[in-house]
């Protein structure tokens, strides 16, 4: 889990947009390449508030081991499950052709 970026380049913005599947125009790339570093600077101020003796935390309260028993609870019906799907077929979610394979 990487350190927060100190700066952010236009190439970084383009890379992040690709990962997020957001299609940014050249003008938008320029815009965000200028805007995101400013946001990061503000965040950096907050990071300074915690001294080196304060560990980074992922959870707001120190609670461990929240488990449930291995017992079945009722599911959705297929009709309910598919109710919000833009398209379905054969009781399955229909999604567009997938390009990348894995």
């Amino acid at each position, binding site marked *: *889990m990487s350190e927060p970026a100190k700066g952010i380049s236009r190439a970084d913005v383009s890379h992040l947009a690709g990962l997020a599947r957001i299609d940014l125009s050249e003008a938008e790339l320029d815009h965000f390449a200028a805007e995101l570093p400013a946001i990061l600077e503000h965040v950096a101020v907050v990071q300074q508030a915690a001294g080196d003796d304060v560990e980074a935390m*992922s959870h707001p309260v120190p609670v461990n081991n929240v*488990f449930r028993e291995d017992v079945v*609870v009722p599911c959705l019906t297929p009709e309910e499950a598919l109710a919000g799907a833009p398209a379905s077929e054969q009781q399955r979610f229909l999604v*567009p052709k997938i390009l990348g*394979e894995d």
Partner: protein
Amino acid sequence: MTTETLVPVDEALTRYDPVMGLEIHIELNTTTKMFCGCPTEFGAEPNTQVCPVCLALPGALPVVNAKAIESAIRIGLALNCEIAEWCRFARKNYFYPDMPKNFQTSQYDEPIAFDGHVDVEVDGETYRIDIERAHMEEDTGKSLHVGGSTGRIHGADFSLVDYNRAGIPLIEIVTRTIEVPGDKAAAVARAYVSYVRDLIGGLGVSDVRMDQGSLRADVNLSLKPKGSTTLGTRSETKNVNSFRSVERAVRYEISRHAGILDQGGSVLQETRHFHEDTGTTSSGREKSDADDYRYFPEPDLAPVSPSREWVEELRATLPEPPAVRRARLQADWGFSDLEMRDTIGAGALQLVADTIEAGATPQAARKWWLGEMARRANEQGADLDSLGITPLQVAEIQALIDAGRINDKLARSVFDGVIAGEGTPEEVIVGRQLEVVSDDGALGDAVDRAIAGDPDAAQKIRDGKQAAAGALIGAVMKEMRGQADAGRVRELILEKLT
């Protein structure tokens, strides 16, 4: 597709040493999913085992299945791993329709189990495989690709997704690099996967069926020139679905890598797909920018901190270690070292054990699994446990032989019928009219005809040469199309002639 230059494995190994890494995914057999209470039954109608959590509907809150944690710890302990005192889940972010949250809940740098090892045996030699980690994650949904000519993704017009499998708990077991003598690499890889199957099957935490996908193996392989210490670029062959295929995938990749390196080329770091029919791999997907998974700690799930008391309690539930178990079984069964080694090498240890448990003698169980069943598996290019016949059925068929209802030859036909789905062994015998004839009336007539047809043999028996009965028994068996009780036939012949 480019034509690949393949170098025969033996030749490749004169110039290169293979370095392997194996990843095994184990689907746990918990009653419910990893983070929600949906059932996990195999083969259910599509999208009947889904809820807001595993469909990633807004506002849904995942909660960890305690049984899955318990199973993960037991697997870690069985692999001689350390169990983390505190660990978290992490989000592995990527977009793919079989993962509705757009991330997979997994573990990143804090696996629940780490630094283990197992010892596997090949041709009487023991090889230590170091385990880097065993971590918890969830399975994905299943996509059905429609419209493409081949059913693979390329060329598909759209995909249909069933999320029943999404969220089923998985344990991913990752080895450290495995460097063994090149000529043993493929066999060691196979032996390791087979060993892990037996080990985890023995824990009762998974069905460990490769043919049903509850155990899936990925084979990572690279070559380094002999004498070099620099690792080569590896390929990752995904979802190799049988023990035999693990072995073949290793051999194929050795040949393929050597072909590229011999010509001064570089191996692409990519995923490859293994093809069962041809024993070859084909290019899947090159590593790319999209593999930046941006792992971060899962904020919706509390960290897991198994107490040392709990870990020790679970350690106490572990079955005896495999080496101890094998020694005990060998003594119980009265197998020679060679018989035992063959049984393990064939991946038949558990099948033989279950068959004996179901009532067959050790030698009968070994005979069927290493003879008839191994031959069928070999012909079909399948593993023994995916033939469609269970240890219980083998034991039932042996019991029918012991009762004189069928003989070994007819038993083969009963196996055919059971595998073809014609019902229980009993039903197959009735359906195919396979029962041996031990009725003295019918047999007596056939014996009379055999004696009349071979007066020379008959005279020899009258003269006290009982060995001559073989010819007459053969004639009777032929007339009865094999469906005679040979022992009774012999008795009748001797009664009539002596």
